[in-house]
């Protein structure tokens, strides 16, 4: 049964991919990209990667699509016919694809428990997590504790991307249009948005603090939190959203999140451990691990929310009518 769902979802992904290449209307392409992401998120659930699915659904189907739509609105939504014949790219692509497919023939079969990827560290993470870290979700323990250095790097990358978008697009405060787009037309959207807004934020907090026991963590929570605010901004206009979270606050939050993460690392050094060695944070090593993971997930969450909203504000504040 699992195989069947896997085959059908991958088939649908392929069809959507081809449709994206063929269509010339960029608005349609943006919507298809959203469907493509949602399909891949469903596939990740079938493949047991629940944490990844949560992230992909919020990011790919949510925020990416809105950014693509904003870019289309700022540029043009019609794709011109290319001047060159697609013959050379087609030859290159088919040759590369054939070489890669030849390469897969040496790969272990799908689902093979003896595949080299499952040996060494992967099995020790699964085996040692209950005793070392005391959290049930192994993805969280690897992300936040065993590979904490990596995650600090990733958070810094996201912070840098936020600064990059800020440098490229700048930011314009919106004085007028604080009411947002045409009041009458959006009644249904506004009522629904008002109903969902607190629930989405509550769910984000649940995902943040429940990350030790079930699927969730700072990255997912941050993105879901940001999606809630983007929904609010879509329904009530950017001006109102900026009154709830002003841009200056976001810039501070983006830095504070990374600093919380690094501070946990330095604090564990001051207490006599190594950088990001959470065991020393409390008398009991497992409590220390819990505390450390909670704090750095909070830092990750704060930075992710702030950067997502900085990016969104940057794109949308360039639109004239304020209708996104």
């Amino acid at each position, binding site marked *: 049964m699992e*195989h069947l769902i*896997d085959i059908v979802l*991958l088939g649908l*992904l392929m069809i959507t*991919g081809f449709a994206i*290449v063929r269509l010339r209307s*960029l608005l349609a*392409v943006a919507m298809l990209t959203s469907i493509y*992401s949602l399909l*891949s998120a469903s*596939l990740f659930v079938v493949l*047991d*990667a*629940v*944490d*990844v699915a949560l*992230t*992909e659904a919020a990011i*790919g189907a949510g925020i990416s699509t809105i*950014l693509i739509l904003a*870019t289309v609105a700022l*540029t*043009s939504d019609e794709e*011109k016919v290319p*001047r*060159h014949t*697609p013959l050379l790219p087609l030859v290159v*692509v*088919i040759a*590369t694809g054939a070489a*890669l*497919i030849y390469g*897969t023939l040496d790969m272990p*079969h*799908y*689902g*093979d*428990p003896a595949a080299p*990827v*499952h040996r060494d*560290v*992967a099995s020790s993470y*699964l085996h040692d997590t*209950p005793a070392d870290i005391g959290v049930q979700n*192994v*993805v969280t323990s690897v*992300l936040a504790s065993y590979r904490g250095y990596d995650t600090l790097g*990733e958070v810094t990358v*996201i912070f840098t*991307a*936020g600064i990059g*978008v800020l440098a*490229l*697009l700048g930011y314009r405060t919106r004085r007028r249009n604080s009411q947002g787009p045409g009041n009458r037309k959006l009644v249904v959207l506004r009522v629904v948005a008002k109903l969902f807004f607190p629930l989405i934020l509550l769910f984000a907090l649940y995902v943040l603090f429940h990350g030790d*026991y079930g*699927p969730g*963590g700072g*990255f997912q929570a941050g993105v879901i939190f940001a999606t809630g605010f983007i929904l609010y901004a879509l329904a009530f206009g950017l001006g109102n959203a900026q009154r709830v979270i002003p841009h200056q606050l976001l810039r501070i939050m983006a830095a504070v999140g990374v600093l919380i993460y690094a501070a946990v690392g330095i604090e564990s050094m001051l207490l006599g451990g190594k950088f990001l060695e959470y065991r020393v944070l409390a008398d009991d090593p497992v409590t220390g691990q819990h505390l450390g993971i909670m704090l750095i997930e909070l830092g990750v969450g704060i930075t992710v929310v702030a950067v*997502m909203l900085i990016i969104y504000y940057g*794109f949308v504040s360039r639109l004239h009518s304020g209708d996104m």
Partner: protein
Amino acid sequence: MSELLGHYNYWIVIILMMTGFYTVIARPNLIKKIIGLFIFQTSVFILFISMAKVEGGTAPIIEEGISVYSNPLPHVLILTAIVVSLATTALGLALVIRIRDAYGTINEDDIHVQDEED
């Protein structure tokens, strides 16, 4: 048959990857190129997550009575990669908007023509 099923995921991943690659190199529209890159990135995510799957396993959340789990390490790598992929997509789209400000078009062919005129 087992050969076919055993590599089915990887082959579709490669087809998706090549779809994205083709969009990047053959389409002159810059937004389309970024979307092609996005398809390429997602196909890499599916490749990693497919390799992490263990037959009969379940999500890597430790629970009593369950002994087979899928590999959590690729999940962690891809989780952070997805967030970083959004960061790169956003930067790319921001560059597209600035290119449109400077050239008045987002078509690569037109941009080349303008560059040659200067």
